């Protein structure tokens, strides 16, 4: 009991260790995963984030427009586990978990991050050029699993039914062999 008494008495004359929080804002530590930010201009609508989201917090609504598609994304923060998988899987860095932790709201709408991506769908179909080295990178990146590559037989094939023309494979190809042909 004596050491406790000593600590209690010395604390009485020390400054309190309490942070004066609501008056002085406290920044979260780097790497903190807080409120989701979504950049619609970078998004390519590959749908990878929707697939990896374990609580199913992301909803995607597609509307057809003359130029292509308008994709409205909604990230429900009251359903999110803040695991950061969507951020990690997004090749275009269109999703970011910011350090903003102020997520207490009386209105449910304040806890939804939404954004719209305007996608111009290419007219042609996916074709593979002469430069292909059959590295299988495109097949691995494809969110729909539409591409199959046989390394030994040197055959590259795409299932046009499955392909959504998102363009992930085009940007992933190290040889720039893939393109949406005319």
């Amino acid at each position, binding site marked *: *009991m004596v050491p*406790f*008494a000593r600590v*209690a*008495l010395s*604390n*009485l004359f*020390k400054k*309190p*260790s*309490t942070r004066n929080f609501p008056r002085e804002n406290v920044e979260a530590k780097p790497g903190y995963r807080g409120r989701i930010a979504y950049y619609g201009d970078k998004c390519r609508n590959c749908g990878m984030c929707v697939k990896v989201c374990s609580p199913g917090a992301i909803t995607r609504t597609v509307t057809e427009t003359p130029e292509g598609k308008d994709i409205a994304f909604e990230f429900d923060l009251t359903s999110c586990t803040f695991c950061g998988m969507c951020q990690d899987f997004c090749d275009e860095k269109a999703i970011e978990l910011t350090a903003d932790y102020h997520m207490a709201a009386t209105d449910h709408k304040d806890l939804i991050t939404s954004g719209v991506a305007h996608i111009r769908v290419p007219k042609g179909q996916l074709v593979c050029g002469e430069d292909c080295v059959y590295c299988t990178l495109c097949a691995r990146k494809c969110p729909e699993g539409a591409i199959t590559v046989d390394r030994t037989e040197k055959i590259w094939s795409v299932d046009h039914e499955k392909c959504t023309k998102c363009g992930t494979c085009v940007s992933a190809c190290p040889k720039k062999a893939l393109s949406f042909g005319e």
Partner: protein
Amino acid sequence: MSSFFQIIENIVKAMIFPGLLYATAGGLLLAGLDRKIIARMQRRVGPPVLQPTYDFLKLCGKETIVPHVANKPVFLAAPFVGYVSLVVMMLLIPIGGYSAFSGKADLIVILYLLTIPAVAMIVGGSASGSPFAGIGISREMVTMMAYELPLIIVFLSVAKLVGGDSMNFSLQDITAWQEQNGPVIFSLSMIPAAIAMLLIIPAEVGMQPFDVAEAETEICEGPLVEYSGFPLGMFKLGTAVRIFVMTSLFTSLFLGGITSGIHIGWTVCGVYVGDLLVRGLIHFAICAVITLLCMTFIHAITARLKIEHLFKFYWTVVAGLSLISLILVWIGV
């Protein structure tokens, strides 16, 4: 005409100075100070000193729920009985050598009145019909039995010291004796009794580590479990006033007569208002120091005891300390 003034004076005494208002305000402030200083001892900022007042006001505005198994009149009356008995006790204790009412055997009356708040809590808890309250009241009873014995021995030793050959149970006489011979705490034989009294205060008030009856983490605040709204506020107020009453009792038993030398003129209707004001403030300051010493500090450095340990502690250590004093006084050291 004089009897009319007498009545007015008695009402003022009961309602304002040593009575209702002074006791309530002092108690709430002491409870606030206790919470503030314990926070500082734990390196926290702590609530404002007026926090118990806010709590009480808020509880006034809450809905009062009476469980359908409860005995309604008893359930609602219990907190008021406890509170009123505490205020009555405050009238008997001399503050700065001034008491509202005095008699030949104040100490014995106080001894009986002291049990009433605890009994009120027991009655109220049992009227609520909750099993948590059942455990709480059984613990409250054991706590009461544990601290009553040493408390009686402390009272006896003070009475014996002041009375000489016989015993003197009048608080007015005890204060007068201390004005002549110096405070009781300065006589060597009474120091163990003073320590025992300091250890009795937290149990009487129900503060950690002796709050086994109201342990909120294990039995959901025991007897208070079904209380809500204004009756709960009255219980909280009663606890706050109990701090003030117990520390006042300690002050008048062991540190009486300190302020008797202070004289400031300023009379209103033949009453020395200036004296009362200064003495009341000094009395409150002494009470605050005692609260700090025996409740806040002990609360900060200990954890809650088990009921059997509490009983053992009071009937061995505390009763032993007070017995030493009684024996020393009896043989006249």
